[in-house]
């Protein structure tokens, strides 16, 4: 049990609709997980980190697409293990990943999910509509941290005092309530203020942040929330610090937690702004009828869809050994000289892509398979981007205000849901703007958006907004979480 968190990445999708920010309609557990893992991979470039051997997935995406992780990450034979999309699922995944069985430094844990709201919950403005992906790479090579999993429940009918419960939990983690210095992030659903006071009395040397409060607990991907707690805490730990991150389970009857001994070495991190509220709408629901319907859209048979996933998901093209022409998509024959033997796969860059042309598709001009997406997002952009001189790809633009992208701007390619066909979601790359200034990312400040004041007011219906959430791409910013007032 001696593995440190080597690196982590966070993906918080943000979509702006009116005054609310929610996840985009083209994201799901799978795309968020892949995006978080890709970011992690980029952070680890040049650090000597080796290819993943095992991936622990905490999320709701179907186990039937385990193979898709291997394909999307470009790691053949990746061992994918699945855990329920809840906090215990995450703790279980971390415990399994921390177990040393010869794959040290080659295991990652990713928690990623979106909330699926019932129509009733969707209409309830108190419902938090969180979504995101958090990926951790675990390694024992640094030897700096300990991940120790503790859980203690209480027999039914036995309800100890809050202080007593806290003392018991800390002991389970090998910590002395009075002798330990460190930090605890504690999530509880009820009575957060009383819990705060109880922690301060029971463990005076420990800085405690209690998060939680009354909420309608529907549609919240709690595995992601738990992973966020871990992410936040790990960012702050210094040498000699001990950290505990945990969640109370069912009121005060149990506490599931991880202990970390700092510092956790961070190679970098990436995060977006604070989480938002869901819009009071059910348009984000995946309608099963829609998924099962035989599409009136352009037909791509399933085997053809599978034929070039490396190209569709990872921008892998091919280079001719004779004339050195690089082409995308790969078709097994050189565009330039016609050679079909010995073509080499070559991954094209997925960031910093220059827009060569862009159009804005107004509602009504979209192909029918995008009808339901347009119902939700309205107009959208499509861009032809330059992968290399003379090598291009065509992407729908997402996470962006339509009509702002310009020729010459830069975009990055991300995996997203395209549209449903014959019972499955078809995935492919879309572009998100990365040129600062010219095109606001959704969720960033949009000077033309009239509705920010309404959003600020929304905190009154979202008690959990009080929790500070990592933001920005600032790497090692030492932000302390705010205490609830």
């Amino acid at each position, binding site marked *: 049990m001696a593995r440190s968190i080597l690196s982590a990445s966070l993906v918080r999708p943000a979509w702006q609709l009116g005054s609310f920010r929610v996840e985009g309609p083209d994201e799901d557990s799978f795309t968020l997980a892949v995006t978080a893992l890709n970011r992690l991979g980029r952070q680890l470039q040049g650090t000597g980190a080796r290819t993943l051997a095992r991936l622990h997935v905490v999320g709701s995406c179907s186990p039937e697409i385990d193979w898709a992780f291997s394909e999307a990450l470009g790691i053949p034979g990746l061992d994918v293990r699945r855990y329920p999309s809840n906090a215990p699922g995450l703790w279980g995944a971390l415990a399994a990943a921390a177990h040393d069985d010869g794959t040290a430094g080659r295991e990652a844990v990713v928690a990623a999910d979106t909330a699926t709201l019932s129509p009733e919950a969707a209409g309830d403005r108190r419902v938090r509509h969180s979504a995101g992906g958090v990926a951790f790479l675990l390694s024992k090579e640094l030897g700096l941290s300990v991940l120790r999993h503790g859980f203690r429940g209480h027999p039914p009918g036995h309800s100890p005092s809050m202080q007593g419960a806290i003392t018991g939990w800390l002991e389970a983690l090998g910590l002395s309530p009075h002798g330990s210095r460190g930090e605890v992030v504690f999530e509880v659903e009820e009575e957060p203020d009383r819990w705060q006071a109880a922690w301060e009395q029971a463990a005076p040397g420990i800085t405690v942040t209690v998060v939680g409060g009354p909420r309608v607990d529907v549609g919240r991907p709690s595995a992601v929330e738990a992973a966020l707690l871990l992410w936040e805490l790990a960012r702050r730990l210094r040498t000699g610090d001990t950290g505990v991150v945990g969640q109370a389970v069912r009121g005060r009857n149990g506490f599931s937690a991880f202990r970390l001994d700092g510092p956790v070495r961070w190679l970098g991190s990436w995060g977006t702004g604070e989480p938002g509220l869901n819009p009071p709408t059910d348009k984000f629901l995946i309608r099963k009828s829609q998924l099962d319907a035989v599409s009136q859209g352009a037909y791509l048979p399933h085997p053809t869809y599978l034929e070039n996933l490396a190209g569709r998901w990872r921008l892998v093209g091919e280079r001719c050994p004779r004339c050195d022409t690089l082409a995308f998509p790969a078709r097994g024959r050189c565009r330039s000289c016609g050679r079909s033997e010995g073509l080499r796969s070559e991954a094209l860059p997925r960031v910093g892509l220059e827009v060569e*042309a862009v159009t804005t598709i107004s509602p009504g001009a979209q192909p029918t398979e995008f009808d339901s997406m347009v119902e939700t997002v309205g107009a959208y952009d499509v861009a032809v981007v330059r992968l290399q001189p003379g090598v*291009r790809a065509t992407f729908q633009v997402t996470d962006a205000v339509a009509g702002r992208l310009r020729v010459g701007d830069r975009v990055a390619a991300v995996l997203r849901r395209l549209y449903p066909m014959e019972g499955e979601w078809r995935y492919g790359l879309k572009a998100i703007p990365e040129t600062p200034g010219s095109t606001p990312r959704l969720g960033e400040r949009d000077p033309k958006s009239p509705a920010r004041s309404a959003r600020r007011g929304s905190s009154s219906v979202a008690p959990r907004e009080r929790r500070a959430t990592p933001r920005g791409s600032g790497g090692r910013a030492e932000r302390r979480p705010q205490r609830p007032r």
Partner: protein
Amino acid sequence: MGRPPRAAIVGAGHTRFGALPEGPRRLVRDAVDQAVASVDRGVDRESIQELFLSTLGFSGWQLGNAASIAAEEAGRPGLPAVRVENACASGGFALRLAVDAVASGRQDLVLVVGLEKMTDVPHPRRRYWLGVSGDTEWERLAGLTFAGVYGLMAARYAAEYGPVREALSEVAVKNHAHGVLNPNAHFQKAVTREQVSAGPPVAAPLGLYDCCPVSDGAAALLVARPDVARRFTDSPVYIVGSGAGSDHLAVQERSSLTRIDASRAAAEEAFRGAPFDRKRVDLLEVHDCFTIAELLALEDLGFSPRGGAGKLTLSGATRLGGRLPVNPDGGLKAKGHPIGATGVSQAYEVFLQLRGQAGARQVGDAQRALTHNVGGSGATAAVHLFSGG
């Protein structure tokens, strides 16, 4: 003076274009009947030896074996018949096959029919069919239909050559003005540049008035071997050049976003060995499915330098009465664009123009003409050159 003519048009017919009450069978029958009736010295239907039907098969009402229906409606069941499909360039390619059928000596007289019935389909199904000829895997699944693809080309054109809005609007204004003079046109109504520029957006920078309409219609041509043409008429219209080309289906794979290389290749082949060069062409029928397409066509076909088509258009040179009238029938933009009928309809217009029968839209003393028919966003293209008898 170049090679002798390869084929001659001796009769031509054309239904109205627009949202029509007639079904596809009736449209074929009307166009063929008109073509037969137009033959100056008369023609016995029994002397028609082969039929080429150009149609996308929009709506899928009879996607397979549609040519046999055309033979029935032409009054010649049993005729050798084939459906030709290259999306919006189907008509140009059907004509090319007809030319080859007579130029090779295999047949004396063949029938080309172009048809599309598009407006009898519910809206979502129509939008599905409007996109079937583009690249499915990369363009369509990125959310593009043809308006979107041409929108991208227009955006790139503007990035390379400067503002293009005025010129695009002028293409629409000009072609609508020409459509007013064409009783078969879908739109017989003039528009102003301000109206065009202020039209609802479709695929920026293209708006509603930059797009051709969805139309029903049919056209038919009787194509004869040149040495027998005068049996049918004293004024046949000779086909003196035929060229075709293709390119990558997806725009992203082409050498440029502001050129349609298939058009360039088709024009090169058509002019190779032709009895006249570009300078002597009196009128053009080009494939203006979107206003930007007419600008690209002028450049791809060699009638304007790169980036100069906007200026040429704004100068008035391409209007009726100008130096080089383009799309005197209103073009796809105003006349309408029943997909499979369009390439055949372009040759119909040339047939009228070169025989001095185009009425109010007659290009004075027109002797030589070019038609240019593009499939989708430029995956295929056919060009034909014509001269009057």
